[in-house]
C-alpha cells in the first residue's frame, strides 16, 4: 500500500446551510481523512483549513473541491509524509 501523506488545505466558501458538511463529505468520499480543521465565518465567507491524510494525489481532491458550486477558492500546501503514528490502517 502507498504511504499516506499529510496535506494542508485552505478553502474559502460562500455561506450556505450545508457548507461544512459538503466539504467534509467530499474529503471523505475521495479517500482522505480529516485529522484537524478550523472553520470561521468571516463576513460573508467561510474560511476553512483542513489537515488531511491519504494515499491518493491531493490534486485530485483539490479539483473535486473546486468543482463545488459554493467553493470560491482552494489552496493546498506542499505535501509532507504523515507521521507513522497517524498512518491509516
Amino acid at each position: 500500500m502507498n504511504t499516506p501523506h499529510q496535506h494542508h488545505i485552505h478553502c474559502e466558501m460562500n455561506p450556505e446551510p450545508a457548507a461544512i458538511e459538503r466539504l467534509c463529505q467530499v474529503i471523505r468520499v475521495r479517500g482522505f481523512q480529516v485529522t484537524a480543521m478550523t472553520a470561521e465565518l468571516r463576513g460573508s465567507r467561510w474560511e476553512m483549513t483542513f489537515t488531511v491524510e491519504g494515499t491518493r494525489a491531493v490534486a485530485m481532491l483539490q479539483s473535486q473541491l473546486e468543482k463545488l458550486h459554493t467553493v470560491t477558492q482552494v489552496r493546498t500546501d506542499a505535501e509532507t509524509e504523515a507521521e507513522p503514528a497517524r498512518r491509516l490502517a
Partner: protein
Amino acid sequence: MNGAQHILQAFNRHQIETVFGYPGGCIMPLYDALVDAENVEHVLCRHEQGCALAADGFARASGRLGVCIATSGPGATNLITGVANAHRDSVPMLVITGQVPSALIGTDAFQETDVLGMALGIVKHSYLVTDAAELPAIMEEAIALAQSGRPGPVWVDIPKDILLTDVSPAAITPAPTATTAPADISDALALLSKAQRPLLYSGGGVSLAGAEESFRNFAGQSGIPGVVTLKGIGNHDRQDPFYLGMLGMHGSRAANLAVEACDLLLVIGARLDDRATGKLDGFAPNARVIHIDADAAEFHKLRKADIAMGGDLSRLMAQFATAINAAPLAIDDWQQQCRNWCATKGFQAADNDEPEAPISGPSFVRQLSRITSDDTVIACDVGQHQMWVAQHYRFNHPRHHLTSGGLGTMGFGMPAAIGAQFACPGKTVINVSGDGSFMMNAQELATIRRYRLPVKLIVMDNQCLGMVRQQQELFYDNRESQINLDDNPDFVAMARAFDIPAISIQRSDQIRRGIETILAYDGPMLLHVAIAREDNVWPIVKPGGSNRDMLDESSQRTPGIRQPNGENPSTNAKETAA
C-alpha cells in the same frame, strides 16, 4: 405572489412545460398553485422513483431540463435513486421537494428528513431555502446550474411556510453568456500528426455538450477509428467504416483490441469508467492520451493524460476537423487493421433460422434493430438485455439510446420511456426490459395508461436475474443464489389489467410478427418475449480483470474461470459482482 406561485412562474420563464411529480403534505402549496397553472403539464407518476427517472428520461431524450417534484420525508427519500441515477450520468435535472415548516426543522416533525444532508453526495448542488426573499434567486441559479458545464441534478428543498410566503422577485438579470477564445490545440495536433495508430474513445459527454454533429464531422473527416463507451453509443455514424463499437466489460473484441494496440487515445467526453477500461494496468498500455472533457476534475483521475483540454467540446471538435482537413493523417494500415478486426471480431450474432428454435436475446435485438425506424428511442433496463441492446441495436444518435450507465439502476427503463415519450411525442419509444427490472417500477404501467402514451414495452423474460446468474455461473462456480424468478407473474395478464394490450412469443419464427404487431398498434402495447434461461452476454471481462482477457462462449466450458479476485469461491459466496 407566494413562493409556490413563484416557482411556477420560474418554470414559465424557462419554458419548462412538463414536470413529473407526486403530491403530499409539505408540497401542497405548490400543488394548489398548479390548479391555476396554464403552461405546465404535471405528470402524476405512481411512485416518486418513477417521477425522478421519468424526468431523467425526458432530459436524456431531449437535452432539455428534467423536473421532478415530491413531498418531504418519504416522497424525498423515494426520489433518491432517480436523482443518484441522473447524477452518475450527468443528466440535467431540477428536483423540488417540500420540507416541514421552518420552525419545525430539527424537531423530528412528521415527515421530516434531512434532505439536504441525505442528498449531498448525489447532486451537483442543493439548496435548503431559509428565507423566502432568496427563493427567486435560488430558482434562477438552480435552473442554470443544472444545465451548465457538466450537467447534473440540482435539488431545491423548500419549507412549507416559504411556499406560502409572499415573495417579491427582484428583477432577474440573465447571466451573461461567456465567450471564450478558440483553444490552442497545437500540442494535441502535434501528437496526432506523429501517431500511427490513433483511436477515438468517446462517451456521453459528446451529446451532453451538443457536440454530436461536430464529433461526427471530425470522426468522418479524420478517418480515425473509434470506440465508444456505453453512453457514447450512437456518437458515430452507423455507416462509419472505422467504427468498432462499444469497448469494455461487454465490449466487442474489435474495440478492446484496438484500444490495446493504439498509440494515441483521444478521449472525448468520457471519464474512463472502470467498466470501460477494465483493469487500468492493462488499459491502452502503449498509448499517449489526449483527454477532452467539460469537467476538469476528470483529468488525470484514473489515467494520466499527456494533454488535457476543457472547454466547449463542439467548438474543439470543429477546430480539430479544420486542422485535420488541412493536414490529413496517413494511417491507412491502421485503418485497414481496424476494418479487419471489425469484420472478424465485431459483435456477431447469427439469426436462428430454425422456426421452432427458442428465442435468443441477441438475435431478437438484431431483428428489433432491423425492423424499427431510424429515430426510434430505446429505453433499457439493467442486465443482460441492456448489454444485448448495447451490442446489437444499431443506434444512429446517442439520444436514442437511454440507458442507466453509471448507476446501473434496474427499473430505469419504463419511467425513462415515459419521460422520453413526453419529450418526443412523435417518436416511437420502446422500453426493453428484463423480467427482474420490469417489476422494479411496474406501477408506472398506470402512468402509461393514464396518459395513453404509445410506449411499447418489451419484456425479455428468462425467468431469472440473468446478469447475476451469468456471473454466478462463470465466477462463482455456478452456485446460483437468489436469482430464480420462475414464479413471475403472467406479464400479459398484468399489462391487460392496466388496460394495455399484450402478446407473448416463444419461438424464433414469431419474432418479426411480434415486433410488427406492437409497432403497428396505435397505443401502448406489451410484447412478452420468452428467452432461454441459459443465454449469456458474450464477450465478458471478469470484474476487476483486464480487457485483454475477454472471455467468450468457448470459455464457458473451461473450468477455472472463477472468483473475480482469484479467491476460493466457497469463502466468498455472498459477494455479488453484478
